[in-house]
């Protein structure tokens, strides 16, 4: 490859020309390849919403489908919100950040579809119980907004 640009940017090494430098196709192809790789490696974000169905528990799990497998999903309702993240015991974890500090979610992934249902865990007796639609972030007719980062 023949590069005519004599300088380069500090972070990605993109071509920087002096007035005496020539113009070369290879410079542009190289720069575009670097930019393409940097964009592909960057964080992806997806936003959307769903309307709660008023159902909960293992027989009525909630689900969201993404264009990629997120590392973090934030879900926000009117009064309740939660997050699901990868990396907790090589799995996922949900925190219901209002009212229920012991709320957890049973979470599964299939391709890029996230499925969950809320449960309550007691450290006293290790008992898990299905929670309400609110705790599953699925109260009837409530609009929930989500942000997925991957």
């Amino acid at each position, binding site marked *: 490859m023949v590069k005519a640009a004599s300088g380069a940017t500090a972070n990605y090494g993109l071509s920087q020309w002096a007035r005496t430098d020539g113009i070369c196709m290879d410079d542009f192809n190289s720069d575009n390849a670097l930019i393409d790789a940097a964009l592909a490696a960057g964080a992806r974000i997806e936003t959307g919403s769903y309307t709660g169905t008023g159902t909960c528990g293992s027989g009525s799990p909630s689900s969201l489908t993404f264009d990629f497998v997120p590392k973090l999903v934030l879900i926000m309702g*009117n009064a309740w919100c939660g997050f699901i993240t990868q990396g907790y015991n090589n799995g996922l974890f949900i925190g219901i950040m209002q009212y229920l500090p012991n709320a957890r979610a049973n979470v599964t992934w299939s391709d890029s579809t996230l499925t969950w249902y809320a449960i309550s865990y007691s450290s006293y007796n290790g008992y898990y119980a299905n929670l309400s639609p609110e705790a599953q972030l699925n109260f*009837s007719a409530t609009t929930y907004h989500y942000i997925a980062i991957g």
Partner: protein
Amino acid sequence: MTIIRLEAFANGAHANQTKAGAFRRIPAGWAAVPAELEETAADALPWVSLTVSEDGKITGVTENTEAKAAWEAAEAARIAAEEAAAGGTEGGAANG
């Protein structure tokens, strides 16, 4: 675009998801709402009745008024019970 799970839950509600732009992948058992029906779906969700073609595409969306009315009645009863339990001095808890 909005996608809806074709099979309703026992309470008549349909799982759904909406985002700007198209879904690259639609889960099995779900289908996309045609653009011309999105507003109707948005107003009615989760209480919708779907018309689905043989190849699994949504061709019609209407509000499931029966399921919605059943939920509204149940919700009113729940709030009344909460208020009664609280001595009628407090409102229902915030939901959602």
